[in-house]
């Protein structure tokens, strides 16, 4: 456990000197928080949406327009929900950026060989590197959500509307799916890193992992599905299984000998 902590501290000390990483970790949550807050602020008292609570399809009303909300409130919940999906980009983009620099960076500085020559196990090394990427991503996601919750409370004074905005499905998404997404992104970045030599290339390829999140966003916007609690719970279970598979594959690919002899 101590060696994992050492790796995490080392990664943070190194990675957070990189401006690109700092920019991603700081800017992305702020941007993703500003968008739904901006929507919330600009859609206050939208008169044209007053009948929305009676016009929406039943499944949408159930998840986005609980009893007691006006049509205007429902419109705000609907609009914010559309963009809350983008919030899930945070736990994907941040760890990919960190992992791309922390892992491929070892290649470019040739520092992996001395590291592997220590009595550290592959599990400890990978766990350290994964956690070093996942923890800031999860914390940034939580911090972003906390800012959103605080901002929403300042903009909206209707308790019912706030509880609809901070619905359980978003809490599950942020607090459970978020870290799982981050772990998947890091595992994928690990796999990519073992095959490429440039941190920028690793980052670009690893960013493919945001495609499912964007698909979720556009799917919801296009009305293909409505993300309710049940779907989010299913997504969480699927993500957990996928994570197990991805971590297994990443560990298999992260073969000490192959890395030392192939990483040039």
């Amino acid at each position: 456990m101590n060696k994992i902590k050492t790796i995490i501290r080392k990664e943070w000390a190194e990675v957070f000197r990189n401006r690109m990483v700092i920019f991603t970790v700081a800017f992305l949550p702020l941007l993703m928080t500003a968008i739904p807050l901006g929507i919330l602020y600009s859609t206050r008292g939208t008169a044209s949406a007053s009948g929305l609570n009676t016009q929406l399809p039943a499944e949408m009303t159930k998840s986005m327009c609980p009893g007691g909300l006006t049509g205007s409130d429902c419109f705000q919940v609907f609009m914010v929900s559309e963009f809350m999906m983008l919030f899930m980009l945070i736990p994907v983009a941040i760890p990919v950026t960190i992992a791309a620099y922390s892992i491929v960076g070892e290649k470019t500085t040739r520092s992996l060989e001395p590291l592997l020559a220590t009595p550290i196990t592959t599990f400890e090394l990978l766990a350290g590197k994964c956690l070093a990427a996942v923890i800031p991503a999860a914390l940034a996601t939580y911090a972003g959500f906390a800012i959103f919750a605080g901002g929403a409370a300042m903009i909206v004074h209707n308790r019912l509307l706030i509880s609809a905005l901070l619905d359980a499905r978003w809490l599950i998404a942020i607090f459970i799916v978020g870290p799982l997404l981050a772990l998947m992104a890091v595992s994928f970045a690990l796999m990519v890193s073992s095959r490429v030599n440039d941190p920028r290339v690793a980052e670009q390829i690893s960013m493919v992992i945001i495609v499912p999140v964007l698909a979720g966003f556009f799917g919801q916007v296009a009305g293909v599905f409505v993300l309710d609690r049940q779907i989010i719970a299913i997504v969480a279970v699927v993500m957990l299984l996928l994570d197990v598979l991805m971590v297994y594959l990443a560990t298999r690919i992260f073969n000490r000998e192959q890395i030392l002899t192939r990483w040039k």
Partner: protein
Amino acid sequence: MIHTEELTKNFDGVLAVDQLSLDVKEGEVFGFLGPNGAGKTTTVRMLTSLIGPSSGTASVAGFVLGNQDKEIRKTVGVLTETPGMYDNLSAEYNLRIFAELYEVRDAAGQVDKYLKLLGLYDRRMDPAGTFSKGMKQKLAIARALLHEPRILFLDEPTAGLDPEASHLVREFIADLKKEGRTIFLCTHNLDEADRLCDRVGVFKTRLLVVDTPARLRTSVFGRKVVFHLREASAGLVKVVQKLPFVSEVKAVENKLLINLDDPETRNPDVVRALVGAGADIQFVGELRHSLEEVYLQLVKNN
């Protein structure tokens, strides 16, 4: 301390190390000499359990390669071919990380000790990336020593260093030798090997020969004594040739180069014969071939 039996490494059909059988004794500085691409680094990587052998067996400090890899890594210190520092981090923090990974008890104390020993203490808070090549190499040596390993693997420790830095590194290795550590020194700096090593092994995918530098010289070139004379005439060459223990005599300018198996015993007889023949001997010395000449001859023969 290090024992290998027919240790072999194949990379997708390319033979890097071929049936290496070797014994390195405790407290010995063993020079592993070979040209670039000879398989020296691959051998070090196998012996430090970084990569596995394709066949053969080895033990390091009594631990069996393949079965006790973690114990091997705890016991040995490795100076890799390139220092591989975290350039953005301070010299002190670079060492601190490794002290923790090696589970060194007094990590801070050990870090300070080696920073001072290698003359880097005053620059300890500077990023390693600002260091010169020589300083980085010294930092890498400090890193390899933090856990006080009994065996040190040094892969080209003075490669690319200026003469002053090379000298400092060599002096430090000599000090480590005095401490009784076993040192496996990969190098193609033959002067360095000559100065530091108790024995050397010449390696080019397979081990060509192992011996002390002195015995290698003798086995490859024999022993030659140089007699500096006022004048080296053909008559004097004939006088020496008649001596039964002399295998070869050559006159070069005013010198006679004489092959002798046992100069310590035979030199007085040669001196007497030359003086008897009227030669004016100015001085006598042994012709010492450099290890480089020995090495080149061995590699050429193989």
